[in-house]
């Protein structure tokens, strides 16, 4: 199909859709954009359709929505962290009366000078971090960055060691042969399941162990390990597909139920 014919068809479809929207708003149950709630719905619908238009091709509508998304989301997180961390944690310690003016329901506690200095240091470090935006002396931001990195490294080292290593090893050390509650015969289902779990973890670890060449028994275990890992990836993939489809259903529900009201609410 020629590019001009393609464009004409798109314009006709868009025009027909716009006309239908006008008629549906005027004579149907659709809310008009001349109230605050209606305007909000129309803006939300326009932005949703603009993002979905990317499925056809990259286009100005998508670019507008994308640019707006970048700006609005960045500012949203700034606002959130300002009120939650800078006002709630910092201002309340350094300048309690100002914090109380901003959030009247805040409970102000007396703090001693050591604590005050500690939070003053946080303020200084924060300013040093933002100093990176200044034309000169960007290296100053390395100090607070070093605090963040050092804190995260120390914290993660012990936290991961406990939760992702010790606990995981502990929960993997389970009996390989499980007997029936009466103690007489072997409970085959539990036994095979436990062998799958323990064997799967060992084979998975062998796959990640590159200090020994993956040959012979080691190679076979490694091969089994990648199969187990593939099952894990498959499960994760299945859940991702379900999650994304659920989000899409949510957006379609918004467009057809909340906005266009084709389906009754």
């Amino acid at each position, binding site marked *: 199909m020629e590019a001009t014919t393609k464009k004409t068809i798109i314009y006709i479809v868009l025009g027909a859709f716009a006309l239908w929207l006008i008629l549906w708003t005027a004579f149907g149950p659709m809310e008009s954009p001349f109230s*605050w709630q209606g305007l909000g719905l129309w803006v*939300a619908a326009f*932005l949703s359709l603009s*993002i979905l238009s990317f*499925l056809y091709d990259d286009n100005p509508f998508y670019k507008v929505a994308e*640019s*707006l998304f*970048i*700006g*609005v*989301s960045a*500012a949203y997180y700034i*606002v959130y962290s*300002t009120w939650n961390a800078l006002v709630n*944690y910092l201002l309340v310690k350094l300048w309690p009366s100002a914090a109380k003016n901003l*959030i009247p329901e805040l409970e102000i506690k007396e703090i001693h000078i050591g604590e005050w200095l*500690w939070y003053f240091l*946080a303020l200084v470090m*924060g300013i040093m*971090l*933002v100093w*990176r*935006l200044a034309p000169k002396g960007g290296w100053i931001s*390395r100090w*607070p*960055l*070093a*605090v*963040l*990195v*050092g*804190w995260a*490294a*120390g*914290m*993660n*080292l*012990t936290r*991961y060691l406990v939760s*992702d*290593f010790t606990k995981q090893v502990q929960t993997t050390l389970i009996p390989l042969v499980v007997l029936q509650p009466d103690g007489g015969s072997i409970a085959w289902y539990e036994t095979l*399941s436990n062998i*799958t*779990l*323990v064997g*799967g973890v060992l*084979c998975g670890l062998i796959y990640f162990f590159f200090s020994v060449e993956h040959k012979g028994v080691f190679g076979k275990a490694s091969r089994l*390990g990648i199969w187990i890992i*593939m*099952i*894990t990836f*498959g*499960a994760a*993939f299945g*859940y991702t*597909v*379900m999650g994304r489809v659920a*989000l899409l259903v949510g*957006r379609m529900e*918004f467009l057809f139920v909340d906005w266009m009201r084709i389906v009754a609410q």
Partner: protein
Amino acid sequence: MKKQVPLFITFLFGTVMILATFIPHYPFKLADTEMSMFFDILAAFAILLGGGNLMRIHVTKVAKHKKGWAYSLITVVGFLTMLIVGLFKLPLGPTSGVGLENSQLYMYKLYQFVLRPLQSTMFALLAFYVASASYRAFRAKNREATMLLLAAFFILLGRTLIGTAITAYLPGIVEIFFAIVLGWVAWDQSKSKNWVIVGLMGAIGLFLLGRTIYGYGVVLTGGEMEFITIPKLVNWIMIYPQMAGQRAIMIGICLGVISMSLRIILGVERSYLGSDTE
């Protein structure tokens, strides 16, 4: 000086955090609570830095009328609008609450009608790309891809109503499916003369087939037989093989995090400090 001091700070804070885990007494006991607030404050400044940087790039683009400057202008306008209405908590009318979740704030409306639709549609868009990725992944080109395909296929069936429906109307379908798959594997392996695998797969396949036929016999004579259902199979996959793979990955990641943390604390890894020219 420009690098030595930050390296020392990293070492100091990293060591203190490690020691705090082992010494549950003052002053180390405070490290957990006070340091986490300190970290949150610095993280808030880091977000400010990110926003500032974003603005610097886009304002420059607009000022110099570079290609696509109009889109940058939209970013700047969106950013400033949200920032002003959020920082000043501008209300739509008389309001009692002061929290950011208050529905009478302009910020809440901006979130509800601009940010949330944009965010969720952006992620929903991925459903289509996941569909095309599924097509590529679901072409069982080798055994590994087949394992991924089977796991994802059964998860999708088992975690939706269709899985329950299939096994309710077609009891024994899971056993027959696996008997066919194992039979195919045994036949494939027989070409390579791997007789151990052929015997094992064939035996399990025959056992599953025999159990299903026996089960039908029991059901037809009015008895009860417990067939494997897709939701049950999915639960087993999630608890055993999936968990095994996840644990292997988690242990691997953990060892990586520990070694990287040690490298950072001891000053071997310095890339986060940037180049010497700064």
